[in-house]
Structures are given as structure tokens and as C-alpha cells.
């Protein structure tokens, strides 16, 4: 290479607004804390009470474990059913929510809005509504998880479909392929790996969330936790919490193992 005689001008020194943003953020946090009437004093003066409270969880009672394991299994089944439901719905809606594939502008907008709507309502809320209209039990919980996460899976799949190299779609366009053929031969095959990753992540998440749906009467281990906490039965609560944490951490390990195998 020839010696570089032309020295390009240095880029302008970036303005460092860190102190300004930092101050503004701190001010906002302070304002909110005052408005919510949060006083750190509760933590500072009450730390002994809080420590004493957590001390009550010190002697977990595992005598009911078989029953709790059954409830945990129910929670896992709820998460699984919800995920399958979410996968099917997301799979059907996603192609229409991908900008580059959707046949018409209105199908794109409609699919987007449907997915947004499903995502916007929190699953605990959906569970409340389904329990109120369908009755108690794990089925409303599975439905709630399914509807909420279908919005997520649909959005993830659609974004993956948009990211596929456009050459693949153009190649199929060139041979006169239609919407379904482009999906079948360029869309889905290109994003299979991402799809399975997302689905595993959602399964993981649904089992985690399934553990709390019992609080609103939708089955699973949450009911037991709510009951024991309400009756101040800390030994049982501690056993339940430990069981939940261990199960969820194990599932977490398992799913990250599968995900790393997939890549």
C-alpha cells in the first residue's frame, strides 16, 4: 500500500451528556419515590423485623412433598398446553404479520394488531377473566398462557421471517411461486432453528408463570403457596418455594442445554 498522505479529519468529539442524564434520572426516581410514599426508612429501621420474618422460613417441612410434586406436574402440563396452543396460533398468524410476505397491506395491519392485542393483556389478567367465565381449574390457566404467549411467538416468528435473506424469496418469486409456496420453501425452512429456540424460551416462561396462576384460581402449585402463606404456615411455604425454585432452575438448565445443542 502507498503511504497515506491524506489524513482524514478526526470525527468531532462526542458530547458527553452523561451527567445531565444521570441527574435527570435520579431526580425522576426521587420524585416517584416521594409520590409513591416509599420511604427507605422502612427498610433501614425495619431490617430486624424483615430478617426475623425471613428467619421464619428457616425450617422447611417436606412432609407434603408428593402432593406438591403432583401440583408442580400440573403446572408444567399447563405451561406445555399453553405453549402448544401459542405455537399453533403464532404459526398461523406470523406469515401475515411479516411485512415482506403478507399478501395485502390490510392483512399485515390486521395480523399485527391481533398479535399486539394478545400481548398487551397480561396473562394473570387473562387467567382472572377465564377463571371468572369458565370456572376454576388448570384449563383456564393453560388458555390464558396460550393466548398471551401466542402474541409473542407470532411477533417473534414474523420478525424472523422478515430477516430471512431476501434473495431466497426473490428466487422463488422468479419461478412464479405464490404466498404459501414462498413460506414452505423459503420462509419456514430458513427460520426453523430460531423458531425452536423461541418456542423453548416460551415454554420455560410459561412454566414459570404457570406457577403463579394458582393465585387467581387457575390451577397448579400457586394455590398451595397462596393458601400456606395466608395461614402463616411458613414451614410449608418454605418447602413449596424451595421446590418451585429447584424445579424451575432445573428446567432452565435443561432448556438452555437443548438450545445450545440446536445451535
Amino acid at each position, binding site marked *: 500500500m502507498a503511504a497515506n498522505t491524506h489524513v482524514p479529519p478526526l470525527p468531532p468529539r462526542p458530547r458527553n451528556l452523561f451527567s445531565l442524564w444521570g441527574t435527570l434520572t435520579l431526580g425522576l426516581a426521587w420524585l416517584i419515590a416521594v409520590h409513591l410514599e416509599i420511604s427507605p426508612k422502612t427498610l433501614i429501621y425495619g431490617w430486624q423485623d424483615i430478617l426475623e420474618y425471613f428467619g421464619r422460613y428457616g425450617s422447611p417441612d417436606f412432609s407434603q412433598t408428593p402432593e406438591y410434586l403432583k401440583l408442580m406436574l400440573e403446572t408444567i402440563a399447563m405451561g406445555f398446553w399453553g405453549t402448544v396452543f401459542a405455537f399453533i396460533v403464532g404459526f398461523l398468524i406470523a406469515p401475515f404479520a411479516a411485512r415482506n410476505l403478507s399478501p395485502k397491506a390490510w392483512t399485515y395491519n390486521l395480523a399485527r394488531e391481533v398479535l399486539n392485542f394478545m400481548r398487551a393483556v*397480561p396473562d394473570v389478567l387473562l387467567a382472572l*377473566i377465564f377463571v371468572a367465565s369458565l370456572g376454576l381449574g388448570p384449563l383456564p390457566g393453560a388458555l390464558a398462557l396460550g393466548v398471551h404467549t401466542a402474541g409473542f411467538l407470532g411477533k417473534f416468528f414474523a420478525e424472523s421471517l422478515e430477516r430471512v435473506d431476501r434473495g431466497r424469496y426473490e428466487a422463488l418469486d422468479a419461478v412464479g411461486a405464490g404466498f404459501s409456496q414462498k413460506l414452505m420453501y423459503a420462509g419456514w425452512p430458513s427460520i426453523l432453528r430460531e423458531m425452536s429456540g423461541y418456542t423453548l424460551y416460551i415454554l420455560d416462561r410459561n412454566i414459570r408463570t404457570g406457577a403463579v396462576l394458582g393465585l387467581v384460581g387457575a390451577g397448579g402449585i400457586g394455590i398451595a403457596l397462596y393458601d400456606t402463606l395466608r395461614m402463616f404456615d411458613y414451614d410449608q411455604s418454605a418447602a413449596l418455594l424451595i421446590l418451585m*425454585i429447584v424445579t424451575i432452575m432445573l428446567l432452565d438448565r435443561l432448556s438452555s442445554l437443548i438450545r445450545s445443542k440446536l445451535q
Partner: protein
Amino acid sequence: MSLPLRWPTPDGLPPRALWVTVGGVLLLLVLSAPLVEFNPLFLLGKLDDMGSFVLRMFEKAPPLDYLPQLGQKMLETLEMAVLATLIATALSLPIGILAARNATPHPLVGQIMRDVLSFFRALPELVWALVFVSAIGLGPFPGVLAIAVVSLGFMAKFFAEAIEVTDTGPVEGIAATGASRMQVRLFAMLPQALPDFVGTLLYVLDHNIRAATVLGIVGAGGIGFDLINSIRYFEFERLIVILLAIYLAVTLVDRLSDRLRDRIIIGGGYRHGS
């Protein structure tokens, strides 16, 4: 339309991996059907109930005198989510550095940090809220703590992962100038990890607003308390107003964060020569 489609395999038949996966999932569904008490006939029979439930929300005129309280509660909900996110952000920067394999001061510290974070993430916000409400009483404070704990678990983990995948070139370059280990982290690792971190931050904020709307169910502040009460006392005209408010708030924040994410991650960076 040109169905039926040939499969994109040499023999035009679905690949075996697909058969195995679909078959396995179906088998698990059948096996676990009793656990979730799945019964299609029951569901069909309940369609009427669902319809009448939805209709009852529109039977009466929306309660206008409730709107001021609704606004106040929604503000409280948003504030809880924002404050919790700020606390989690502030804590997750140092903890993320401690937890990242290539930035941690000692491998043992990193392992302990990662285990602690995984413990924070293991329980959903509602369970943490239940515990904190029992520990420090009703109100928004336990709700903020519950959200902050779970967010810290997620944000510090993602931040640590973003640090772990940073390019080693800048790290070596800055180390070659005689920079201390702290300076290497500040000027070589952080700038590379921050754009990812902003993406995570927006995602977590989004999630936290949703989470904050339901924490009131266990008495941890926000709109959730009104929500559960309107279901308990069959005030369905109030329920629909609350649902709409939650939907609006979540959608607005979603759109806003989408726009911010695009600007920061794609368009906002410095472009040389432009």
C-alpha cells in the same frame, strides 16, 4: 393457490425429525390432558357462559365518576414499573460485570453471582410480591421491590452475556496502552455491550409495566387491586374500563419502546464521514 405442497426434501416427504417431534408433542399432549382437565365438550358447553360474561361488561354505561381514581391508579402502576426498572438498571451494571466470565474479578465470584441471579429469576414477580407484602406490609413498596428483584435477575444476566461476547480486539488494544483492569472494562467492554443493554432495558420496562398491573392482586399497589375487586364484586362495567386502560398503557409503551429501540440500535450510532 397451488396446494398441496411438496416438502422441500429430496423425496418430497416430511423429514423424519419433524415426524418424531410432532409425534412426541402429540403423545405428551394426550398424556397430560387429564392433568389440565382438558375436555372439549366442557369447553363447547362453556361458550355461552363466556359470551354472556363478555356481554355483561357492556350492559351498563361506563362509570365516569371512577375515571379520576383510575387515572391515579394507572399513574401509580406506571411509576412502580419505572422506579423498579431504574433500581434494577443501577444495580445490574456492577453486578453484570461481576457475573461476566471475562470481566469478573475471580471465577468463584462470577459463579456465585450467576447463581444468585438465577435464583432471583426463578420466581415470578407475583410470588416475590406475596413474600414482600408479608414482610413489609401492603402498598406499592413491596411491589417495586418484587419487580426490581426479578428485573435485576434478567438485566444483569443479559448484560453479563453482552459483555461475554464483546470483541477482544478493543480489549487488547486498550490493555496495550497500559490501562488498568478497571479502565479496560470501562472503555473497551462497556461501550460494546451498551447497545444490547439498552435493548434489554426497553424490553424489561415493557415487561415490568405488564407485571405492575397485576401485582395489586396480592396487595402490592397499582391498578390490580381495583381490578380484582371489580371481578369479586361483579362490577363488570368497571372491569372493562380498567382492562381498556391497561391495554392502552401497555400498547403505548410498546410502540414508544419499539421506536426508541430502532433509533438507538440501528439509526442512532455515529457514522464516520456523514
